[in-house]
Every structure is written in C-alpha cells, then in structure tokens.
C-alpha cells in the first residue's frame, strides 16, 4: 500500500465522489469518457448497418426512420468530439499527469477542478436526456447550422436542439474552468529547477491545447447563445427574413471548430512524445523545435477556419487566402512528425503495446494529414466538400489522437494509475485489430466520396451512382470494419478490468522512464510527493554517453 501524505481519513463521498484530488477527478473523466465512447460507438454501429442495408431494420436497434438516422449521425459526432475526445485526452490525461509531471501536489485550484468535473457531468446528463425528449435528439448535424437548427418548424423537434445547445455550453464552461486550472498550474506550480523548457512535452501540449481552447471558444459561446435565443425568444440572429445571416453562425462555429481539432490532436501528440523516447531509449529529437512548431500550429489554427466554408456563400475571393493558410499548417505538423521519426533513428526500439499504439498513431494520422491538403485547397474542395471523402479525412485525422494515442497513454500510464501491469498479448491483439479494422472501415469512404456520396443521407440507394454493386460492396466493407473496430475493444476492456484487479504488481518505474511521475509510488498517494522534488535536467536524457544506466531521471542529482 502506498504511503499517503495526509494523516486524516476521508469518507467515501469526499474521497471518491466529491474529490478535489486531481487523480480521482481524472478517473471520473476517464469513466465518463469511456461510457460515452461506447455510446458513440454503438451509434456508429447503427449508422453503418443502415448504410450497408438501407431500409432494413438494424439488428439490436430496429427500424430506423430518416429523422432518427439524422439524429444518430448528429449525436455520434457531437459525443465523439465533446464527450469522448476532450474528456479523455485533455481532462483525464491532463488532470492525472500535469501535477505529477511538474512535481506538484495537485492542481492550482483543486476545488475549481472538482466543479469542472461536476459541470461536465451535468452536461453529459443533459445531452443524454436529449435522446428521450419529444421530437428526439438534435438532428441537424454536429455542426447544427441554422436555419435548420434555428427553429423547430424546420427540424421537427423542439427540445432536442435546445438541450443540445445547453449541454454543449455547459461542456464548454467545464473545459474553460479546467483549462484555466491547467494553464495556471503548468505556469506556476513547477518544482524547483524545472524551467519551462524542462517540462515534458505532454505538459507543453496540454498547456497549448488549453490556451487554444480558451481563445477560440468565446465566439461560439456567443453564437450558441444567439442560436438559443432564436429558438426560444424569437430573435432573428440567423433568420434572413428578420435581417439575420445564417452564414454568421458558420463563421462563429468554425472560428472555434478548427482550433478545436488541434485541441484534440495536441495531447495525442504529447502522449506519443512521451512514449517514443522511453521505448527507443533515446532523447526526443528536437525538443525545442517541437515546442515552437506546436506554438506555430496553435497560432495558424486561428486563421484557417473558412476552409470549412469555401462554397458556403462567403466571398469567393476569400477562398485562396484561406487555402494558403490552411495548407501552411502542414509544415509545423510535418516538423513534429519528422522529429518523431528522427527519434527512432539509431534508437533501441522495443515494441511493447504503448509503443505499438504510438507508432500506429503516426502511421494512421499521416493519411488524415495528407488528405487535409485535398480538403484545404479550395478548387479541390468544390467536389469533395460534404462528401464521404471529408468523413474519411477527419476520421483518419481524429481517431489517431483520440483513440490510438489515447490508448497508447492508457497502456503506458496504467501501471502508475493502478499499480499493476496490463497484459501484453491482449494489448498487441487490441492494437493489430484496431489498426486493421480502422483501414477497412475508412479507406472505402474515400472511394465513396469520390463517387459523389454526399454526407448525412440515410439511404444512398436513392441516388443512381450509389445504387451499384460496387458501392454496396464498399458500404459493406466499411460496415464490417466498423463492427470489427467495436469488437476490437473487447480485449481492451477485459484487459483493463482484469489487470486492475489481478495484474502483476508494477512497482514505481516499470518502464525505466525519466519523468517525475515515475519517481513516486504506483499509485501515488494523496499529495503525490513526500518531499518537493528538485529538477536537475530535461525529461529525455536517455542513453547519455558514459553513464551506466540508459536513463537519467529528472530529479536525480548529478
């Protein structure tokens, strides 16, 4: 049993439910995120079964009408971005790791941290409640463009969209609170000796993601308030008949929406940046270069948003400037990707499960990254906009950070969180199954998109080009892949539960890693560090010449 810093015992409710301990809060976000991931995954199952067999009832769900299909598509996207990717990558990883990695006892504002989780929890309840209200859940796409979302006369349901707006607004509030906590903690609560450029890259990435979120979400909060008022107070912000402008919402949405994808990507890259050095026994290549590239990515992400609106009715002369800024982002991302690869060069690589998922993240993300060029070039986007080409692109861009990198992080830090090791063979099975089925699911969608398959349609057979044997084969392939992806999670969930209960004891530092979290017991006690650590060097001093050990912890005296 690990040593606890506190003498006083805590009751059940204080310790496990209304806890201010960042580690417990992280687990609460983790549990909620995993629950929502299963929900979002089951929604994907319904979508894919419907597309493979349009018009037929979906096994396990039943008959599917068009409104329900649109609602499922909408909620799948909404849940995966706001209730899976963000809680898992930012809130769970960030909360658990930031204080431990910088040598702090907890976050700067522990009570605010607790408030942020419970705000998030309430937002989750409201969102799930929206499935059960009269009229059903929101069904206008996760982007919720007005006028469709601006009034029930167009979208059919009154409560679904309204609750969706409230849930998203509360989620934003929760993550703003969390973000302020992360930023303040990383800036102000580092252990003595840890300069900013001695922070692990995971902390840098969480810091950058939090800052990007903080600066980008405001206009959408304003836009969401206006949408809500259009619905409930008969204002006309987005109603052309009342002098309003539907395209305004799109600007407000995407000014946030684009930086948001980097908010999701960055922590994923952070996990990879921590894992590659440990499993190559080599420093990360170009630490400062990666930090600067991250900052440039963050800044650039604010000036690309209209690439989601090339043909939306904006002045067409804006398209080329936005195309230029958009594909420029490929440069800092390439810097980070190539630096990761350079880390492998002349390393001593061990392909344990965390490393497999980290490498898999890079390999799969490359597909999403290069197809970003297609989508980001206005002339090319004319055809592929709002087709399955885009759907394939963003799944190839978002699944690597939200799932591959996140899972890499789970396998890597599970020993620290639980004190036990996960099962290696099950982990390898999980990885190879996911890697295979990921491609089986989403590669066909590029083809379907090029064939002209538009988004968010319940019955592709209605359109001649999509009512062919070839199209049907592609749909079936994607559906098989999706079911495979879902089933791939079974070995993982079994592994997670079994290892937490019966896995081999991990000890303090099973991976022989340098960062501070590995210098405390597994799991860490309340307060994390018996004594405030002193930091003497950066996080990636592996295989330092003339040293016996191939690792050199940050807090080990020279």
């Amino acid at each position, binding site marked *: 049993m690990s040593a606890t*810093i*506190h003498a006083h015992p805590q009751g059940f409710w204080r310790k496990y439910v209304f806890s*201010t301990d960042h580690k417990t809060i992280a687990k609460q976000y983790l549990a909620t995120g995993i629950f929502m991931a299963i929900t979002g995954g089951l929604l994907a199952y319904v979508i894919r079964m419907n597309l493979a067999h349009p018009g037929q009832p979906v096994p396990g769900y039943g008959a599917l009408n068009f409104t329900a299909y649109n609602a499922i598509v909408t909620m799948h996207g909404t849940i995966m971005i706001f209730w899976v990717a963000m809680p898992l990558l930012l809130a769970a990883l960030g909360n658990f790791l930031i204080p431990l990695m910088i040598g*702090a*006892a*907890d976050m*700067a*504002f*522990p*009570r605010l941290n607790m408030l942020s989780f419970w705000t998030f929890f309430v937002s989750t309840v409201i969102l799930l409640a929206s499935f059960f209200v009269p009229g059903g859940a929101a069904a206008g796409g996760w982007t919720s463009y007005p006028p469709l979302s601006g009034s029930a006369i167009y979208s059919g349901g009154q409560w679904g969209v309204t609750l969706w707006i409230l849930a998203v607004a509360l989620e934003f509030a929760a993550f*703003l609170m969390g*973000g*302020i*906590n992360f*930023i*303040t903690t990383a*800036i*102000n*609560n*580092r*252990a*003595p000796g*840890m300069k900013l450029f001695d922070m692990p890259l995971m902390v840098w990435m969480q810091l950058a993601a939090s800052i990007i979120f*903080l*600066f*980008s*979400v*405001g*206009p*959408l*909060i*304003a*836009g969401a*308030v*206006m949408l809500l*008022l259009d619905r409930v*107070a*008969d*204002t*006309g*912000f987005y109603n052309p008949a*009342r*002098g*309003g*402008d539907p395209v*305004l919402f799109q600007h*407000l949405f995407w*000014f946030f929406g684009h930086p948001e994808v980097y908010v999701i990507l960055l922590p994923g890259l952070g996990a990879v940046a921590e894992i590659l050095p440990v499993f190559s026994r080599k420093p990360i290549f170009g630490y400062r270069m990666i930090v600067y590239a991250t900052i440039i990515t963050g800044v650039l992400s604010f000036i690309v948003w209209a690439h989601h609106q090339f043909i939306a009715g904006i002045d067409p002369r804006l398209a080329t400037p936005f195309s230029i800024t958009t594909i420029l982002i490929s440069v800092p991302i390439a810097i980070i990707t190539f630096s990761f690869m350079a880390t492998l060069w002349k390393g001593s690589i061990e392909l344990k499960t965390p490393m497999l998922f980290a490498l898999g993240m890079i390999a799969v993300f490359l597909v999403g990254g290069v197809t970003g060029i297609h989508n980001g070039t206005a002339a090319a986007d004319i055809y592929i906009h709002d087709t399955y080409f885009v759907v394939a692109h963003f799944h190839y861009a978002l699944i690597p950070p939200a799932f591959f990198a996140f899972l890499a992080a789970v396998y890597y830090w599970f020993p620290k969180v639980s004190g036990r090791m996960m099962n290696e063979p099950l982990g390898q099975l999980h990885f190879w199954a996911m890697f295979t089925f990921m491609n089986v699911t989403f590669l066909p969608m590029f083809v379907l998109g090029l064939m002209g398959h538009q988004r968010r349609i319940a019955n592709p057979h209605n359109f001649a080009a999509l009512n062919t044997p070839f199209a049907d084969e592609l749909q079936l392939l994607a559906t098989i892949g999706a079911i495979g992806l879902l089933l791939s999670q079974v070995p993982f969930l079994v592994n997670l539960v079994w290892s937490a209960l019966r896995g081999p004891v991990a000890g303090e530092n099973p991976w022989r890693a340098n960062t501070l979290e590995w210098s405390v017991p597994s799991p860490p006690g*309340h*307060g*994390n*560090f*018996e*004594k*405030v650590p002193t930091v003497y060097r950066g996080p990636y001093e592996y295989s330092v010449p003339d040293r016996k050990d191939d690792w050199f912890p940050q807090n080990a005296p020279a």
Partner: protein
Amino acid sequence: MANATRAEHILNESTEVPTGRLGIWWFLASEVVIFGGLIATYILFRWRHHEWGVEAANTINAAGAFNTLVLLTSSLTMVLAHAAVGEGKLDKAARNLGFTLLGGVIFLCVKAFEYAHEIREGFVPARSLFWSFYYTMTGLHALHVLGGMVAIAVVLAAVRKGRAPQRVEYVGIYWHFVDVVWIFLFPLLYLAH
C-alpha cells in the same frame, strides 16, 4: 486541503505572479473572447444596418450614462478596498467592498427599470435585430455583474473575518473587467446612431 507539500508549493511559485492573480487573468482572457465575439458580431451587423439608428434612439441614454457613472464609481471603491488591504486595514477594505456591492445593486436596479420600460413600450427582443443584440449583450453583461456581486459578497464575508485578503485584488480585477465591457457597450448600444 493544504498539506506540508502543498504549503511549500505556495511559497515556491515558479513565476513572480501569485497563482490566484494568474488564474484570474486567464479567466478574463476567456471572457474577452466571449464578449469580443458578441460585440464584433454586433458591430459588423450595425455597419450594414444604418437604419438601426432609429431603433437605437429608443434606449434611455440618461439611464445608460448614470449606470456608467455608477460602475466607474464602484470600480473606484474597489480600488480603495484593494489599497486598504495593502495598508492592512481590513475593515476599511470590507467597507469599500460593501460600497462596490451597492454600486452593483444600483446598476442592476437601473437596468431592470430600463428593461421594464422598454418592454412596456414594445421594444422587445423579437422586434428587430437591434433589440435582439441589445438584450443579449446587456443581459449577458448583467449576468456577469450579478456573478461578480456574488464573488464580492463571498470575499467580503471572508475579509470581515480577516481571511484571504489577497482575494480582494482578484475579485477587483474581475470587477474592472465588467466595468470595461460596459464602457464598450454604452457607446455602441446607446450613443451610436
């Protein structure tokens, strides 16, 4: 929740800036983008709708001007409260926090009076986009005034018991922000024609 490790951390801050002040400034950054988005949207619309000047003439300039004075004065008393903390005079600080609270109350009462009058006259949010913006922007601002007042009340209660005097500065920074937002809203909604 303080323990030995954490107490040392409070002394061992990595920058010269106290953690509370750092947190408040980042919070304000997020608020600036929220109000900024709303205000920028309003300005873009206003530019394209010169005829809104006719509607805007129906805002009660005198009330707006009075409220501007009230908020500025309450910011002054807030500064005095902070100064009093610096001098160690916590009861003086508490008194000035009370005056600041009073300013907030007066502001909200005037706002309520304005809303009631405007609604009676038929200038409701649905009447025109100008009024939609007017109620949204002043309403959001009023909610922030209310939130600020709650925070000030909490800090006031603590200061009366001699606790957490550093929070006077933090709540003061927030209150000044609420004041600055109003300085933008007043000319944009009341004076511009």
